[in-house]
């Protein structure tokens, strides 16, 4: 009975893995196919699509553009998110629940709705579509994740740590900078990576708030409209490898950092 269960569970697990990875594997494979048409059979292989991607100035600048947006919006999210987390974690003031709810709301609003709302609001404020508008929308959307992750970490910081710092002559600011902040580093790093990936991956907000320059997902979308080609597979594979590498590194790093400080 238990044995049967085990076999069933492991079969289900591997079925799930296949289900997730087969499309990815197919996508990666097609990027190496020596033909303009996507599909089997693959008769010969090539790296031409990749060399094409790395020679394409538009693709490269779009990569850079997306990365810049991701980095800048992440910095904004992390600063604002950490600040809100510290504020919320410190005390349970009147209206705490309302403030907390409003803080996490942006993460829950459907992308298309928040994108349209941002578009209208941006026009109302006279903000031009483009990099600034995208960064703004991404930052707002990502703040809740920073708040939640940083608050969770902060709640495990013993109160005596700050009291000890104060006791030894630190004013509240110095205590924050020298004790609280270092303690939060793993959480802030983890949240940053998550924000970077969310921003890099975002299509809807970038599409609605973008100017003439496309972000990477928007560019891929535009290319798709003019027909599927292995070039797109190559671009997507590069993006996949990049994000997966960052994600795995960050996961390992934060796990190690957490272990060290506990």
């Amino acid at each position: 009975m238990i044995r049967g269960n085990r076999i069933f569970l492991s079969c289900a697990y591997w079925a799930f893995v296949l289900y997730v990875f087969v499309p990815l594997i197919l996508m990666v494979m097609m990027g190496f196919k020596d033909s303009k048409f996507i599909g089997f059979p693959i008769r010969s292989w090539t790296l031409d699509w990749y060399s094409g991607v790395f020679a394409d100035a538009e693709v490269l600048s779009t990569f850079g553009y997306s990365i810049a947006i991701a980095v800048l919006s992440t910095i904004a999210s992390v600063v604002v998110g950490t600040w809100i987390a510290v504020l919320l974690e410190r005390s349970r003031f009147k209206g705490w629940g309302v403030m907390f709810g409003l803080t996490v709301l942006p993460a829950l609003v459907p992308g298309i709705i928040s994108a349209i709302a941002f578009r209208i609001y941006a026009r109302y404020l006279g903000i031009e579509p483009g990099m600034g508008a995208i960064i703004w929308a991404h930052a707002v959307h990502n703040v809740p994740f920073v708040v939640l992750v940083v608050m969770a970490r902060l709640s495990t910081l013993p109160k005596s740590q700050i009291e000890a710092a104060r006791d030894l002559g630190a004013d509240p600011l110095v205590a924050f900078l020298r004790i609280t902040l270092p303690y939060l580093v793993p959480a802030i790093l983890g949240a940053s990576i998550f924000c970077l990936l969310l921003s890099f991956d975002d299509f809807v907000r970038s599409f609605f708030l973008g100017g003439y320059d496309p972000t990477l997902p928007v560019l891929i979308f535009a290319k798709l409209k003019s027909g599927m080609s292995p070039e797109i597979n190559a671009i997507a594979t590069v993006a996949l490898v990049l994000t997966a590498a960052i994600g795995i590194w960050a996961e390992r790093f934060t796990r190690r950092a957490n272990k060290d400080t506990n």
Partner: protein
Amino acid sequence: MTQDPLVRIDQITKTFGETVALENLTLDIARGEFVTFLGPSGCGKSTTLRILGGFEQPDSGRVILDGTDVTRQPPEKRHVNMVFQDYALFPHMTVRQNISFALELKGMDRAAIRARQDEIMDFLELGAYGDRYPGQLSGGQRQRVALARALAPDPALLLLDEPLAALDAKLRGQVQQELKSIQRRTHKTFFFVTHDQEEALTMSDRIVVMNDGRVEQDGTPEELYFHPTSRFVAEFIGETNLISGEMRGREGDAVVMDWFGQTLRGHASGTTPRPGETITASLRLEKLGFHNARPETGNAVQGRVVRKTFLGSRMAVDLAVEEAQGATLRAFVDAETGQAVGSDPVWLGWDSDSMAVLRD
């Protein structure tokens, strides 16, 4: 020698919602004293310490440190340091960095910091661990680092909140001796909190027994042990016989009481009972002497052994006193004396001075 006290706690009251943590607490601490705050959990020991450290504000009353009112001063401004119960070492800093934290904030230059670090680490035998992180130290070592860190800025007053509670019994005994000797060598004023009466007795110059946010008794370990003034203190510290009876009158300094028809004489210091009142006295187990004939001591009764408990170096003997309606007394005697007593009645004698009449 009437010097100003280092610390004066002046009529402090502190409440948390409905809970009264401290009620009108007044206490002076002299320079260089090792004072222990002793009391059961929840009696307000930590709260007192936290008020002295500046982490809590009293509802009313004042804290005077070295002649200055510091009641409203934040912790970083006070010349007081604390050893926290969980040590609160900074996990991302090495032992050296933990110790120099306060020194840097004082604005000391690098050479002076280095010198002070070396001095304090040498003093507490931490030299070999300077570059380790707290996570790489044993409990006893962490405890010493916490002490080193608190002593480094040379505070006028050191607060210790149950700093030994996390150590195992064997190590605790050793660290108790160490702490005491550190206090002697530094001539610092230590304000030590514990709920462990044995620890308090072995370490302190002076013990303040707390109960329910109030001071029960304040005195040397010997005074508290042999002359408790209240039932709470008598029962909280050590083991004792509680003897209840009717107050009959006075004979000089002694209080005469009736205990199931036996006339006993005790000594009252914290209370002035009136004849006719029911009073309780505390008689320490080791104050009862065994005699073959009626002894010349202030009090003497005859008892019959009902149980003997062997405790290694000594023996606890329970005796029933037939002339007092079979009431029992317990005595500590050395093992040989204990073994020698048989089933025949034995005379028990004790001085009136060793029986403390209590305030209820």
